[in-house]
């Protein structure tokens, strides 16, 4: 098998070869090119979509600069969250403390923008120089009359997971402070959808059609007031389980709101999520409307999906994503397209996650925790997938190796959630996997005709298709009348 760092061997499995549980939940090995980030990054991504709050990064400029509007977490109203606010700590503050500067910054910002609430993110350095961020927040909160909430997101506290927890704690400070009297009997919260490319809007529409009231989407297209009253919902649907389970548990503990883990990626999982909510409410109308909706939507997207499946059948996919729940959905969604997952990896999966992942994958699938570019590149060469699903750091690696790519992370530009999203996903996968550009890539060109890789590709009359493709030309849209317009 592929050479890996010795300490990482237990974090990689091949289904069918070992039954021992995959080792995960481990700190990254120092000196590896880990794709993981830090606690600050975790907190920032979870709270960022709350659009009418002020997000102030207390630290040197970098922490604020690198996550300035890099996630397409859309807001239907205020766009305040997309700005970058930082205390830009300098050497003097590092020596004498940054509390004064933080207080002044918060004052100036609150006066100028009049936000609904403010989140103050601590960075590594704040944790080390010992600023009492909580005290400053309390004081500004009193003076300005808005909630100013500290987020304990010092980077060194851990991986993104640690940051998720800190973010949940911070968001929870708002929960329970709003009036819930106008919320109807069938109210739910959707946790862990961040409205990337407008996905929360899609999902919200489904529930509303079924007669279920979405009290709060947390945090996609998020609002401070929605958080305040979200304890008035009867059920929490938790999508990105890694980031939001903690908040759901707090709501369960203090407000007796049950939670269900769901996913809105793929037809199966979207339908299951909708039924999960519909069945929870003892209302035949809701269930009936959900059935109508699911049947209609599936009927709408299925014929086109089948056409893509005919083309993609037998192709291989590799995925390396942040959280495990997304990986489950993707494996299933790829199956629906006739594709086989040959590599499934996550940055932050838990032992249970990996057990489940192993269950749904085919024999031979490599399952990996906290991988790195060298490993990923080696996996690609060995497993020879047609598609890689990952995020910003994986894209250029896949392209360099001549493999199609689909961004299923925060840089995706089209909604991939819901029934419609599955169709978008299929279109994107199809477009990338079948792109004529791969025929110009030496490795792929050789694969198509079984030549050694050194032979230069001959693009003309030399379509790149895998054996078993049935000799279809690389560009088949026209031939099969697949409607790829939006």
């Amino acid at each position, binding site marked *: 098998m592929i050479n890996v760092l010795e300490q990482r061997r237990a974090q990689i499995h091949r289904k069918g070869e070992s039954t021992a549980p995959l080792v995960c939940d481990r*700190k990254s090995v*120092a000196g590896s090119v880990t794709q993981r980030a830090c606690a600050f990054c975790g907190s920032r991504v979870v709270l960022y979509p709350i659009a009418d709050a002020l997000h102030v990064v207390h630290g040197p400029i970098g922490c604020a600069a*690198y996550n*300035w509007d890099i996630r397409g977490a859309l807001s239907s109203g205020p766009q*305040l969250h997309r700005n970058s606010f*930082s205390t830009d700590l300098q050497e003097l503050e590092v020596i004498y403390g940054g509390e004064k500067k933080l207080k002044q910054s918060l004052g100036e910002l609150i006066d100028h923008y009049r936000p609904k609430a403010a989140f103050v993110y601590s960075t590594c350095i704040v944790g080390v120089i010992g600023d009492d961020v909580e005290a400053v927040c309390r004081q500004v909160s009193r003076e300005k009359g808005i909630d100013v909430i500290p987020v304990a997101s010092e980077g*060194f506290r851990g991986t993104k997971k640690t940051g998720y927890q800190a973010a949940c704690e911070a968001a929870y400070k708002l929960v329970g402070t709003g009036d819930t009297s106008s919320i109807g009997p069938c109210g739910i919260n959707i946790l862990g959808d961040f409205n990337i490319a407008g996905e929360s809007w899609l999902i919200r529409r489904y529930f509303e059609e079924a007669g279920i009231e979405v009290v709060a989407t947390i945090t996609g297209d998020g609002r401070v007031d929605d958080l305040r009253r979200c304890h008035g919902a009867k059920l929490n649907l938790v999508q990105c389980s890694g980031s939001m389970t903690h908040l759901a548990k707090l709501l369960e503990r203090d407000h007796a709101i049950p939670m269900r883990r769901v996913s809105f990626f793929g037809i199966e999982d979207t339908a299951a999520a909708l039924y999960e909510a519909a069945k929870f409410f003892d209302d035949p109308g809701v269930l009936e409307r959900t059935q109508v909706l699911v049947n209609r939507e599936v009927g709408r997207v299925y014929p086109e999906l089948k056409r893509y499946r005919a083309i993609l059948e037998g192709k291989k996919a590799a995925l390396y994503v942040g959280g495990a729940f997304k990986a489950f959905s993707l494996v299933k969604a790829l199956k629906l397209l006739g594709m086989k997952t040959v590599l499934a990896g996550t940055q932050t999966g838990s032992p249970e996650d990996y057990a489940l992942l192993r269950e749904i994958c085919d024999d031979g699938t490599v399952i990996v925790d906290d991988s790195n570019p060298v490993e990923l590149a080696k996996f690609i060469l060995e497993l020879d997938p047609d598609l890689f699903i990952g995020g910003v750091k994986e894209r250029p690696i896949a392209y360099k190796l001549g493999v199609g790519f689909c961004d299923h992370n925060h840089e995706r530009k089209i909604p991939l959630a819901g029934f419609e999203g599955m169709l978008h996903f299929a279109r994107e996968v199809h477009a990338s996997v079948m792109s004529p550009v791969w025929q110009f890539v030496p490795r792929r060109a050789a694969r198509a005709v079984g030549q050694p890789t050194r032979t230069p590709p001959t693009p003309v009359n030399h379509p790149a298709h895998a054996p078993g493709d049935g000799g279809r030309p690389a560009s088949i849209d026209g031939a099969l009348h697949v409607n790829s317009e939006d």
Partner: protein
Amino acid sequence: MLNATTAEHTERKALRINPAKTCQPIGALYAALGIHKCLPHSHGSQGCCAYHRSQLTRHFKEPVMATTSSFTEGASVFGGLSNMTQALTNIFGIYQPDVVAVHTTCLSEVIGDDIPMMFKKFREDGKLPEGAQLIHANTPSFKGSHVTGFANMTAAMARYLSERSGEVRDQLNLIPGYLDPADMREVKRLATEIGARFVMFPDTSDVLDTPQVGRFEMYPKGGATVAQIRSAGDSFATLGLGFWASEAAAKELESKCEVPYEMGELPIGLGATDAFVDAIRRLAAKSVPANIERERGQLIDLMSDMSQYLHRKRVAVFGDPDHVIPLVRFLVELDMRPAYVVTGTPGKAFEENVRQLLGPAGADAKVKAYEDLFSLHQWMKAEPVDLLIGNTYGKYIARAEGNLPFVRFGFPILDRVAHRYFPTVGYRGAMRLIAAMTDALLDQKDRECPEEFFELVQ
């Protein structure tokens, strides 16, 4: 998103809104990629490294390799020695670089980690593979900017690797500054065409602009080799481009290896490229070849052809000092009117330098170092400009101001691709800048002018 920006300038004492800079480590990481077979290493929490790699990948659309000490709470209390030792052991064990270039982060700076001591211990414990090199730069995020980090790492290359053998070589040192690979390539081409023998470091061409070959190369073929950087100590002179990014390394070569240096601006625009070409010609004792004379003539031809669309245009410029200064010089050469000139990097010299270039005609211009884009936008609202030039983040302002013509220039550019392959330095780069500016201005006219003024020929 910027609808809360008011024309009335709000006095701020503390905070930074929409910065025009970022922190030192990313510059150090980028510089280190300009050494052949070098693995940059971030000594701090792993988020820093992930952020830098992601941001550089967005700019270059290339894989960016770097490792991290993966600090935890324990390391931030007890120091990062064991993290560093483990990291170096793993790095040499699995990734086998020729050089590991360590930069610090705010965290390891504040807890006072002593990197040279850590290196010494690693070496004394016999863990450093034969021939492998360790270098480091202190890059506290709370001082300077990404440009400072680049400068510090470049200086570290000279400090650790350059050596004086006593025999002066017939070669010039070129320190190119914080340039994109395409620009570094163009600097080399110009020097080569003039016939100079030189070593250049850092050099990220063929590292971050690699062709698609169907392979993933952990260490692409580009980058200055250790042997080249070592030989820089024997060169007869150093030419540094860009005071902020390159002077520290040039000085280091002078004090360590007694190589005399001169500094020049990045060759952006006519005058700055003239100065660069002249310096190379003079230092290398060569004459300027006809090829380069022709390029210069073409640039002047284009400047005169397009002057009617450019002259007297009010421009707002922001970016890194080394880029902005020669760009302002070029705008003045084009008879344009830089009205606001901003850098996020601190340094009074920037303001003085730009003021001098603007002369009495630019007395009303606002010139500010250590400033942010919120202020720039406020000024632009109070008194508008015709054109905005800066990195990707300028697009918010351009949009908020009614799709103001906007030319992307500098670092980072996250949403367009031209910078990856087409230089903005040299005479040809200046031509590209003219094309970009006139495109932006004329596209706006074509889009917005009344039907009767819509013209076929411009």
